[in-house]
């Protein structure tokens, strides 16, 4: 990435968040108030799709924070997304059980007759939310402590994060651990008392996702603009120099790493009730690399670019997977290659450079 490109546009820096607040407002309108015949109406499917994509955008945001701003390329962010998602899954299992009194298949397979006490800690939504974030942060903390202290950087670090996702995926695939096994967690019925199948629940979930995305963006932007943000850029560009100035760079990295994990976990927690299922493929190594691809395509280091990249790629994926499923990998590969070869700063950076060039020339 060009070291001269400043991270973020100077004027009206926070207006981007408004976009998503507006979207959040639009969603319930589009579904409830605007009639089905209008072009502006959104069906349940449409709302749900938007909600899921917004969750992915939040995940990309989390990755861009550590990658674009601090220079830590994580190819394992799926781990934190997955941790949040699985915790939410356990909460939803609790909710489903208290409603239907039917144990999920994987528990019957384990020979359990009752809902295990260990999973009952996720019985209440606030506890589940807190625990989900805490678990992701803890995992991030342990990993970050060992690797940042050991001064493992760059490409080696990225490979190790891939190995980590692979290990977690194997763990979740194991049918004997009571974590759902290769079928994952299914059979969700309601969340906080609201039935998941209801349109209104899904609309509010999607709305919540948009608000969460806006909030995450504002938070991360604020940090990036603060003096702490300067240290982040310094870590990215010349960590040794910053250390020489007396900064504990491993602690700085740990902080951003854990914060990013928390954001990713929240994204996961919002994602699962909208998609209705969670299984180990969510922590597959391939998906974790794909997150980096979204960020790269959109433009890393700008936060906005990451969001845009995630939205663009996932929208394309949904659209094309329906029409021509066997073509999608080639399209994604093609786009990635084009971006890395010709527009390595991503689409957003390219667009802003173009705008700036046009402004200076006029």
């Amino acid at each position, binding site marked *: 990435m060009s*070291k*001269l490109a400043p991270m973020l546009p100077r004027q009206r820096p926070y207006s981007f968040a408004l976009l998503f607040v507006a979207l959040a407002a639009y969603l319930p309108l589009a579904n409830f108030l605007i009639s089905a015949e209008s072009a502006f109406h959104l069906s349940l499917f449409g709302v749900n799709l938007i909600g899921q994509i917004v969750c992915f955008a939040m995940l990309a945001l989390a990755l861009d924070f550590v990658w674009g701003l601090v220079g830590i390329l994580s190819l394992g962010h799926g781990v934190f997304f997955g941790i949040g998602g699985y915790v939410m899954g356990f909460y939803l299992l609790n909710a489903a059980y208290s409603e239907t009194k039917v144990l999920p298949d994987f528990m019957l397979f384990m020979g359990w007759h009752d809902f295990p006490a260990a999973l009952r800690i996720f019985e209440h939504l606030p506890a589940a939310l807190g625990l989900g974030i805490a678990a992701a942060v803890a995992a991030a903390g342990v990993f970050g402590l060992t690797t940042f202290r050991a001064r493992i950087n760059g490409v080696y670090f990225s490979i190790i994060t891939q190995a980590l996702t692979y290990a977690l995926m194997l763990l979740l695939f194991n049918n004997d651990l009571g974590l759902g096994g290769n079928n994952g967690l299914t059979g969700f019925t309601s969340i906080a008392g609201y039935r998941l199948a209801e349109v209104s629940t899904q609309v509010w979930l999607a709305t919540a996702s948009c608000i969460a995305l806006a909030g995450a963006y504002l938070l991360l932007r604020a940090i990036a603009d603060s003096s702490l943000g300067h*240290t982040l850029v310094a870590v990215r560009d010349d960590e040794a120099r910053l250390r020489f100035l007396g900064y504990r760079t491993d602690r700085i990295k740990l902080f951003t790493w854990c914060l990013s994990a928390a954001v990713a976990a929240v994204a996961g927690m919002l994602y699962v009730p909208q998609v209705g299922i969670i299984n180990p493929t969510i922590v597959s190594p391939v998906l974790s690399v794909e997150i980096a691809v979204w960020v790269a395509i959109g433009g890393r280091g700008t936060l906005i670019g990451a969001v845009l990249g995630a939205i663009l790629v996932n929208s394309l994926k949904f659209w094309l997977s329906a029409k021509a499923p066997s073509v999608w990998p080639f399209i994604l590969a093609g786009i990635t290659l084009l971006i890395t070869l010709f527009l390595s700063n991503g689409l957003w950076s390219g667009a802003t450079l173009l705008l700036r060039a046009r402004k200076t020339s006029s």
Partner: protein
Amino acid sequence: MKTNTAIYVNGLSVSFGGFAAITNLTLEIRYGETRAIIGPNGAGKTTLMDVITGKTRPTQGEVFLDKSIDLSVLDEATIVRQGIGRKFQKPSVFDALLVQHNLELAVRKGQAYAAMLGSRLSGEQRARIDDVLETIGLADNRGRLAGTLSHGQKQWLEIGMLLATNPRVLLLDEPVAGMTDQETERTAELIDRLVAPERAIVVVEHDMNFVGRIADLVSVLHEGQLLGEGSMDKVRNDPRVIQVYLGR
């Protein structure tokens, strides 16, 4: 007790594998003094700096700050905190940050990051930054991206970043390498402004005019040993030094 000795090196020997970089070196640098260390390449100048900053450990001998703080057992970060600042040959400023933000980073000296989130600079810190900007002559450029500065300006910024930490000992490794004559003169002026009774300045350089301009005392190193020491004139006329190094 405040002695006047800043850096005290006694009987220092450093060898890497079989190679003796420094052999039995003794020197003493006082506060308020500007010392130049000269010598051909491979003489051990950079190694000496490495030992003082803790990057390399002595094989034998002692190196002290203030004659009381043993530098051979402290780690690099601690030595920095003790007030020894080193400027490397290659300018390493943070290109992606503004000039003033570079200085801000320096002045905060690794302040706890949680506090940095919301904190504004204290008045004292702000004054310090302004001060430094004046000293290094970049006050007009404070809002520029450091990456857009010229080579000379980057060097000054880096010196400025060191200054912001108010070091007791300032080690400058070839500060005018690659500079134009004009920039070299301005750097000399800058170093003059840095002289203070509670500060020792050590400069490693090859440019003899520059050395003559700024140094109080010159130490000549050759093959890891002290060949001669004294004022620039004395050293210039020392036959041993002439034989080995100066031929100008």
